[in-house]
């Protein structure tokens, strides 16, 4: 064993390549082992030791934060989110197909009435005829299965492929309901950050329980009811066949379900950071809904300006980037006082 300050400084420099969460937990401990293993008189790390530490640091970074990051308060929430977000999105997709908005009868305009007779609902089974929706849901199913298996990088690749497909078939995007687009974007953004920055879905599997399932079911129901409200208050239906009574029911229903989800989270003492992640995921969706319900002349996403896109997506993008940086960015190694 040696007490050479130069050797310790050299080891600390090498340990600076490890992920921050790992260093926070293990730096002093590994340093103690390295110093104990060093023979008397050693002044700097040997090449083989340096190579081993650098190689291990690379493996840790590629693997993502492990057990060491579990002391980071966000870690478990992100791990949970990486597991349940893809499942939640599938649930929302299923509800969009199963519970479409049925358009009210229009009697004053015969041409409109004829058109509505052919397409009496928004969403529903007609969504399945949109290839973009089918491909997206197909990718969603694959991602959900992969995260349930505890995998991290392959679901990320599938999500990336799905996004590339969205961009490639851009002209088909209007056929997907805007609320669903916004929610999918939110889940993909935060889901990507969670997969990169957390110990991953395997850790999520250890943490998840039926209570999270119940809360997410209630949230998905709130999403569907608020989507029905959004469909009801959109032009031209709101002018051709106003349905104030139904809108009031939808509004009340979505508020009650949202409050129920928050109350269940508090009563069951579920992870509060997880609730915040959900809130950030829902931010674009809630903004679009608020904009339309307060008399916005058009959808934020329907005819987007750069300002619209920035308002919708910049906060969750910044949040996702900040989360990843906080988890994996290197920290300057602590040098010994001279």
């Amino acid at each position: 064993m040696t007490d050479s300050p130069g050797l310790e400084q050299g080891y600390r420099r090498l340990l600076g390549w490890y992920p921050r969460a790992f260093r926070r937990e293990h730096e002093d401990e590994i340093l103690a082992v390295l110093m104990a293993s060093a023979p008397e008189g050693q002044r700097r790390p040997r090449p083989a030791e340096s190579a081993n530490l650098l190689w291990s640091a690379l493996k840790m970074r590629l693997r993502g934060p492990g057990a060491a990051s579990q002391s980071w308060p966000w870690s478990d929430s992100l791990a949970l989110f990486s597991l349940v977000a893809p499942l939640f999105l599938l649930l929302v997709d299923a509800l969009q197909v199963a519970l479409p908005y049925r358009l009210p009868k229009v009697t004053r305009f015969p041409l409109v009435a004829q058109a509505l007779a052919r397409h009496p609902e928004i969403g529903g089974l007609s969504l399945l005829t949109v290839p973009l929706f089918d491909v997206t849901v197909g990718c969603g199913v694959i991602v959900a299965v992969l995260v349930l298996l505890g995998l991290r990088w392959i679901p990320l690749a599938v999500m990336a492929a799905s996004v590339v497909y969205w961009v490639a078939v851009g002209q088909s995007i209007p056929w997907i309901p805007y609320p669903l687009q916004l929610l999918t974007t939110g889940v993909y953004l935060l889901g990507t950050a969670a997969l990169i920055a957390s110990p991953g879905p395997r850790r999520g599997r250890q943490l998840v329980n039926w209570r999270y399932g119940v809360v997410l079911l209630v949230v998905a129901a709130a999403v569907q009811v608020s989507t029905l409200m959004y469909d009801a208050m959109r032009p031209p239906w709101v002018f051709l066949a106003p349905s104030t009574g139904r809108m009031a029911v939808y509004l009340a229903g979505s508020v009650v379900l949202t409050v129920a989800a928050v109350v269940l989270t508090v009563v069951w003492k579920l992870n509060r950071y997880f609730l915040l992640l959900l809130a950030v995921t829902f931010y674009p969706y809630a903004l679009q809904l608020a904009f339309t319900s307060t008399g916005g002349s058009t959808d934020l996403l329907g005819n987007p300006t750069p300002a619209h896109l920035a308002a919708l997506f910049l906060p969750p993008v910044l949040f996702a980037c900040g989360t990843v940086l906080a988890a994996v960015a290197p920290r300057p190694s602590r040098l010994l006082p001279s």
Partner: protein
Amino acid sequence: MQEATFLILTALATGSQHGYGIITDVSQISGGRVRLRAGTLYTALDRLRTDELIAVDREEIVDNRLRRYYRLTPEGSEKLAAEAARLQANAGAALARLNLARPDLAGGTT
């Protein structure tokens, strides 16, 4: 299960140990054949903790340095026992066949 993982779990089978203790014990168990480096050891320990096969037992400060002790969890003990049984069965099968083909290699009688 990788050999290093197997040896680390084996080192912890008799009780909790700290990092340097695991390194020396693994070297002893393997007859000096496997010498774990610190980077390799802590990558493995982190993975084993994530899989809940080991857990932190306690921490001490010795000579102003942090010493953290790890112990096997019940899941870790089960996994090690299963792996040891698997290796034993494989080794038994290999030795039995060698005994049939080349008794001198398996230490059998002629």
